[in-house]
């Protein structure tokens, strides 16, 4: 058994690519090893923006041997009448490079065939790797790549070093104009010499001597511990998001936490501006005091120790300049007539073919007002409408022109500054939220409603102009908008059917009857796909449960969500067995038959009469439960019908000779099916062990 160490050395790749690069490398290696029957005991990986390390421990020295029977032509056609080989056999011998004496007979159901056993003895793993590695690297792909040298190879950023060691020896190969070696380098700024490596142990020692903390967890702990110490010292709270932490962990090979201060006069700026500028523009973390008030202290992560405080002082200077800029925009914009900017929106195109932002605000106003009513929020409808009219004005402010990530936030702040009512400025302030499912909890229902109005307008408008959406291509972020609407509805428990709002929006674009159905279909499938993703990947609800609820009534988002949660819960209990059984038996009989009427007078057997009665009773009860989103109760209501249904199937023959009676019974089962489908298609659930 041997050890294999590989390090891909690159110029700083952007943080967003790092996990993807490692996943592709791991998959590339493990797939190749499976294919070549190379075994290994364990794999360790580590990555920073400059290196990707893979270490395979106890890997086989020689790839696995294999013997395989290769089948040729049938014996009948292999020889002619004179027992000489035919063309078919000759061809087989030639392509496989074997002689007639190597042939053996293979018995099959179709008779005797000729063939031979190919023995693959296995190759030296090190030699194999020298061929495999360039292939693995070549197969990696990314949505945005670059070229840098005459090899023409493309990658995220230039590849500069290939360290490949097998049991102390360099694996020789070339890729992208680079020759593999046993050499790597340490920290970009703190280590100068080239480092020679012969084993994983040596790699670990050398890295730590050369200021590279290659373990992701170690870097993370170092950052979090230093921040905790700082918080304890100051008695303040450092507000670091996961996204920022991820950035720091991968952008520094030797992370060191530092702090600095800025002049208190800048605290006069709205705190949202300060924190946005710190985080987005300067990658610095804001610090809050115990009463959640922003302080004039900031925290940053340096890639070198800062004993001389150059890093801290430098950042203090920079942040001052940044705030100076922010102040310039803020003061200038505040002097403008903010509401008057709306006229200017007549000159700003929303999208080609979809008119100006001025026109868009007219549509959003009406859509949002409808959504406000549907959401059971009628007392705010007027405010939401007023906010909708003003919500895009900030696109014309200098601040948003320079810092687009402040859209909405600035509009809200400028309105507040002008003395606008809180219910209106807050609505504008929050109307871009959320930006995805993982965002923190939403704060403003009004903002959420306006956000939905804006986004439904985006989705319907773009789709009506033929915009196609797929997982790899979504230039306008339609999928993100769809997800955001789902989150708003679920977070605020908005119990309404989105279909009416979508139809209303379709009308705003002057679309004819025929087109309307098509667009509604595309929009529905879009919501269905995002809903599926949300339930499966973020709530971890089993696939079969999601599939059982997603097909019916999808656009009633909140109900679909509640149904999925309830069915998921019931599916974990033993009684799910009954529901699956009932529904399967019903579906087996009714299949895809057209809907048939049920007439009470045609019910003959007592068991079917009882079933009819129970069905009607259950239906009434179910309606009540559905109205109140009590799906678990509705399910147990269904389960209570089990004995009656069982009796029916035991005693009554559905396929009666009399066509009328038969159809009546099928109709009865169809009604039962319809009832169950109001919650889920239980027939497609699988029972858990």
């Amino acid at each position, binding site marked *: 058994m041997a050890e294999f160490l590989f390090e891909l050395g690159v110029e700083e790749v952007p943080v967003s690519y790092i996990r993807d690069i490692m996943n592709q490398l791991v998959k590339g290696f493990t797939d190749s090893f499976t294919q070549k029957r190379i075994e290994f005991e364990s794999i360790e990986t580590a990555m920073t923006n400059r290196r990707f390390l893979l270490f395979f421990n106890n890997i086989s020295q020689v790839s696995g041997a294999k013997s395989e029977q290769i089948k040729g032509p049938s014996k009948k056609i292999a020889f002619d009448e004179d027992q000489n080989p035919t063309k078919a056999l000759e061809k087989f011998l030639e392509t496989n490079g074997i002689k007639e004496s190597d042939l053996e007979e293979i018995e099959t159901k179709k008779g005797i065939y000729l063939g031979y056993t190919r023995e693959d003895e296995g190759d030296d793993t090190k030699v194999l790797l020298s061929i495999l590695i360039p292939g693995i690297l070549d197969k990696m792909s990314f949505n945005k790549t670059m070229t840098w040298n005459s090899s023409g190879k493309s990658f995220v950023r230039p590849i500069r070093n290939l360290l490949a060691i097998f049991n102390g020896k360099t694996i020789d190969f070339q890729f992208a104009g680079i020759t593999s070696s046993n050499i790597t380098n340490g920290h970009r*700024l703190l280590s100068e010499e080239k480092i020679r490596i012969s084993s994983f142990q040596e790699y670990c020692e050398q890295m730590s001597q050369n200021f590279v903390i290659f373990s992701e967890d170690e870097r993370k702990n170092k950052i979090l511990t230093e921040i905790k110490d700082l918080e304890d010292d100051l008695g303040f709270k450092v507000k670091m998001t996961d996204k920022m932490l991820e950035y720091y962990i991968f952008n520094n090979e030797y992370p060191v936490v530092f702090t600095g201060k800025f002049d208190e006069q800048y605290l006069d700026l709205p705190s949202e501006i300060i924190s946005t500028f710190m985080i987005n523009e300067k990658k610095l973390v804001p610090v809050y005091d115990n009463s959640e008030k922003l302080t004039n202290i900031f925290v940053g992560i340096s890639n070198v120790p800062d004993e001389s405080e150059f890093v801290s002082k430098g950042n203090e200077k920079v942040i001052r300049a940044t705030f100076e800029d922010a102040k310039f925009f803020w003061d200038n914009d505040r002097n403008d007539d903010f509401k008057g900017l709306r006229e200017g929106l007549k000159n700003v195109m929303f999208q080609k073919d979809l008119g100006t932002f001025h026109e868009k605000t007219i549509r959003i106003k009406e859509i949002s007002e409808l959504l406000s009513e549907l959401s059971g929020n009628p007392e705010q409808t007027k405010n939401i409408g007023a906010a909708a009219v003003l919500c895009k004005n900030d696109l014309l402010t200098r601040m948003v022109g320079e810092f687009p990530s402040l859209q909405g936030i600035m509009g809200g702040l400028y309105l507040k500054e002008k003395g606008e009512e809180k219910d209106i400025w807050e609505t504008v302030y929050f109307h871009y939220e959320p930006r995805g499912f993982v965002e923190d909890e939403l704060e403003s229902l009004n903002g959420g409603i306006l956000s939905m109005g804006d986004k439904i307008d985006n989705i319907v408008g773009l789709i009506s102009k033929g915009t196609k959406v797929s997982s790899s291509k979504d230039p306008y972020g339609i999928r993100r908008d769809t997800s955001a609407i789902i989150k708003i509805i679920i977070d605020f428990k908005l119990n309404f059917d989105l279909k009416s709002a979508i139809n209303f929006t379709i009308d705003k674009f002057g679309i004819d009857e025929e087109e309307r159905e098509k667009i509604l279909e595309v929009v529905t499938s879009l919501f269905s796909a995002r809903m599926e993703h949300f339930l499966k990947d973020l709530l971890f609800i089993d696939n079969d449960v999601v599939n059982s609820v997603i097909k019916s009534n999808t656009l009633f988002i909140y109900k679909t969500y509640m149904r999925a949660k309830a069915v998921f819960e019931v599916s974990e209990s033993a009684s799910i067995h009954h529901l699956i059984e009932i529904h399967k038996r019903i579906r087996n009989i009714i299949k895809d038959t057209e809907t048939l009427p049920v007439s009470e007078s045609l019910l003959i057997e007592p068991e079917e009469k009882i079933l009819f009665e129970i069905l009607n009773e259950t239906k009434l009860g179910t309606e009540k439960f559905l109205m109140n989103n009590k799906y678990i109760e509705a399910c147990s209501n269904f389960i209570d019908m089990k004995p009656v249904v069982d009796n029916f199937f035991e005693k009554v023959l559905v396929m009666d000779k009399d066509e009328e009676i038969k159809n009546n019974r099928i109709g009865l089962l169809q009604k039962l099916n319809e009832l169950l489908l109001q919650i889920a298609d239980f027939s497609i659930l699988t029972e858990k062990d």
Partner: protein
Amino acid sequence: MSIQEIILKLEEFWSHNGCYIASGYDNEVGAGTMTPDTFFKVLGKKPWRAAYWQPSRRPDDGRYAENPNRVQKHNQFQVILKPVPENGQELYLNSLQFLGVEIRNHDIKFDEDNWASPSLGAWGVGWQVMCDGLEITQFTYFQQAGGIELSPNSLEITYGIERLASFLEKKSNIYDLNWSNNVSYGELRTEEEKQFSVYNFETADIDMLRELFTLYNKEAIRLLELELYLPAFDYVLKCSHAFNILDARKAVSVAERTSFLSSMRDLASQSAKLYILKTEGKNG
């Protein structure tokens, strides 16, 4: 270290590394990238190494000399290396050390920042180099210019001279920087920044600039027909500067912006194609 020492040192460093030291271009440009020594020379196969100090105008960045860091005319030090050297990042860090930066004591980061110039039909991939939080350099691997895929690629290193000087002199207001030992940035530039801010934001004659844009545009088209791509490109640069002032005056509507930019892009890409035709076509 004064600004002029920085420029002299960078010229010395890059001259030692095989660069021809050009003069800055004598036409208003928004960046060193827009000068013929970069725009044309990154095209085609011929190797090229050039370095030069390029004053660059961005009318919209003017702040009436009241902002400590923003000016409507700043200074770039532009380096073009074609083909891309293997040790570009090391060379760059060496140049900082040559300027006296102790790189062990500073948080120098290569931070994702891709570059695109719609008016030049050009884009590249690279970083902004941050030094203790201050962006001091753009570091870009050119992928396309004038709408043409580049092979070989070029490496462009653009130092922001004022930024570098603020860092080296530890000053937070660029007007306090020393240009030489005898004269400060403030003495040299304050009045210029004030007057040009008034001009760019308040008094530039919009109708005249529109007319100029049209005339420059026409002239570029005429010159391209005569296959005089160098003077034609000069007129594209003039269009670009006129456009930038109009933009600072908030006189460009969205629809106009699109058509201005696309006409400049077309002209730039035609100039680029002619350059390739005339040089590569002849030499093989």
